[in-house]
């Protein structure tokens, strides 16, 4: 690593075995033009303090492991660079609104349970044997759900959502975006099964369209649009549910 400069990184530390609450610790880290924030943390762990705990894996912004708060903003540390913060310093904290497991690692179980609850899989109209070949799906049909399928489950949007922070019962941006992804897929007919989740207070109705979720999404998914389009869908369903003929789709 061609080292050009040093930067100060302040890290929130919390150890469940010994600490009653988190506290900050500061490290000085050398960096080059291409050094990512993640590599800065790896430097600390390799050379300064092996006990610093954080998750990482792919280093290319697709596995969704390394989301953290960098100077108060949710971000993937593998694709943020130390040079962007120099000559200032960095304050790195675990993703906001999620319980801290240890240091920079948060507890993800709540999201995983919510993801499972939305039935995130194709519910087909009728079972089709593999031998019958693939479903036909035009590029236009695919485009109707595709952006929502690009969610990497990094939880940055949960760290961005104050409503989730205030009430973790809220299903949250990513789970609702994925719910919308399946409801919008031409191969799926599971919408009726998923609408009760949407219609609940903990579904779309806990959202006040802060909009920060879409702002911080590293993959250009727009969870806010998924949630708020479903408010319209849920509202229409609320008023017109008794008028629609019950049958095929129920």
């Amino acid at each position, binding site marked *: 690593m*061609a080292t050009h400069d040093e930067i100060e990184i302040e890290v929130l530390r919390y*150890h*469940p*075995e010994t600490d009653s609450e988190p506290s900050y610790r500061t490290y000085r880290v050398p960096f*080059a*033009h*291409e050094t990512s924030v993640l590599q800065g943390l790896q430097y600390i*762990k*390799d*050379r300064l303090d*092996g*006990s610093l*705990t*954080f*998750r*990482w*894996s*792919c*280093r*290319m*912004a*697709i*596995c*969704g*492991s390394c989301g953290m708060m960098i100077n108060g903003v949710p971000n993937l540390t593998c*694709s943020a660079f130390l040079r962007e913060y120099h000559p200032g310093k960095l304050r790195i904290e675990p993703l906001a609104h999620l319980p801290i*497991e*240890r*240091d920079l*690692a948060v507890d*993800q179980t709540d999201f*995983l349970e919510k*993801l*499972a609850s939305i*039935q*995130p*899989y*194709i519910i*087909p109209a009728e079972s*089709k044997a*593999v*031998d019958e070949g*693939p*479903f*036909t*799906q*035009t*590029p236009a*049909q*695919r485009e109707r*759900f*595709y952006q929502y*399928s*690009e969610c*990497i*489950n990094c939880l940055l949007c949960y760290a961005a959502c104050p409503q989730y922070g205030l009430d973790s019962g809220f299903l949250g941006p990513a789970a609702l975006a*994925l719910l919308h992804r*399946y409801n919008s*897929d031409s*191969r799926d007919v599971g919408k009726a099964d998923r609408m009760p989740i949407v219609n609940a207070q903990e579904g779309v109705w806990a959202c006040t369209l802060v909009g920060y979720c879409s702002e911080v999404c590293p993959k250009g998914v727009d969870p806010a649009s998924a949630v708020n389009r479903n408010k319209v869908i849920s509202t229409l369903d609320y008023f017109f549910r008794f008028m629609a003929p019950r049958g095929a789709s129920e």
Partner: protein
Amino acid sequence: MQIVQTDVVIVGGGGAGLRAAIAVAEADPDLNVSLISKVVPMRSHTVAAEGGSAGVVQTEDSLDSHFYDTVAGGDWLCEQPVVDYFVANCTREMVQLEHWGCPWSRKDDGDINVRNFGGMSTARTWFAADKSGFHILHTLFQTSLKYASVHRFDEFFCLDLIVVDGRCQGIVAIEVATGEFFRFEARAVIFATGGAGRVYPCNTNAGISTGDGMGIAFRHGVALRDMEFVQYHPTALPGSGLLMTEGCRGEGGYLVNKDGYRYLQDYGLGPVDPSPRPKAMELGPRDKVSQAFWHEDRQGRTLETPLGTAVHLDLRHLGRAKLLERLPMICEMAETFLGIDPAEAPIPVRPAVHYTMGGIWTDGDTATNLPGLFAAGECSSVGIHGANRLGSNSLAEIVVFGKVAGEQAARAARAAPAIDARATTHEAEASMQSALALLGQDGDQRLADLRDTMQTAMENGVGIYRSAEGMQTACQTLEKVRNDYSRVRLDDKSRAFNTEWLTVIELGFTLDVARAMAYSALQRTESRGAHQRLDGYEKRDDEHFLKHSLAYAVADAPPRIDYEGVVITKLPPAERVYGGMARQEGH
């Protein structure tokens, strides 16, 4: 120690592990499946695969053609009956993924679209833009949530197998969040633990690709096959090793040296065509394209970059619209990591370690030679990749053989004898004690230093081109690192979420994998596929080495290297020919 009684344990939550879990659940919903992964499944390295997955689908294509390309691509070190099964089942599995929701890219009429890939005679690579692995993994993960019999143990680190009476009867794992030990008693175990790219310093792999399953199996006397064949992907970013998919070249990208010259024409891959010709130029197999870089580099025709020499991957002529449709993530990565717009400027690339062709020996049904243990995916060597894997065969492999592993393990679990709880407890206690000893040990060695020394030794000695002298040096260094490993000292002696501790355990596995690679390489005195020598063994030697290597662990000594024959049924060994003279099967 906590105890979990289950029927089938699957270690690894990537594509192969998830496909296996679904297969068990579909084969027999009464079987309890424990899916153990050191990360939450969608973080697994399958997520990073970009280009796509092979499956014959076009009318002018044929299974024979896919078979031929795979066997020739593997320099004939492939188990031909297994390849036969593989090519016959790829498309089926791609369709299955489609039914489960995988957003494959489509043609205008709504049919599946396919792209060209290196070493393939025709376009047969199914793709979801350039996030194929990501979409496959998330499709499998989300689909797996349907099955009530699949119980996930996310962020559980597999420490060891439990082997009693010559039979695999479970595993020992550490719950990462607490550091608590868990004993999983199972009638069948599937390893789907992925590759070992982290043996090398510059690789395309995720941090978790540390060869854990290979290392664990190896220590229990299971053979590691063909470990000397390590694939360098020709187009990775200098320094970081981040992958620029072969799909870039499948879509028509050029590789040029510092003079702007498409140098691959000088390495038997010509003629130069303006648009992609299968199996020629940039669509050559990865081993040959990476080797061509090495020669260009030696002759001073590469570019100097701050992070090492490179050539240019030039996509400009494809146009912005096509780049954004077919290669959006490449555009995004080039922008993020290099500040380059591929529609405006070429991308500097160089080879980086990408894939372990070898792995845990299995038969064509994914059974290892340890009863009760199965293996699938990159950690395994089921026999389809030979000496060089073709791009897009590995995503197909994880689903084709993940399914086989699930079905076979389900069958084995139903037939298995009762578990001897007393003996498994004893075995598990021993594993736990050795892990705790690592945590407590005092010493003067720093983890990162040991890792760096190992990786550098492998890159220098067991790289794209190899010599006896270099490999011997690497072996010596590895033995020294192994020795120093017992004096590693941890900063963190606590139990909860102690990633330093787990990384040390991983390094132990990685180190064993590195040794299997280096010693296997040293003893193969020929050049074949990804194993190329410079010291008088530049030619393929079918007479002596049309054989798989088998590395076995030996207590306190280097691995023992054995050999076994290659099963050849319909395609006898011949010269590998690419470029204008290449055989285009099925055309």
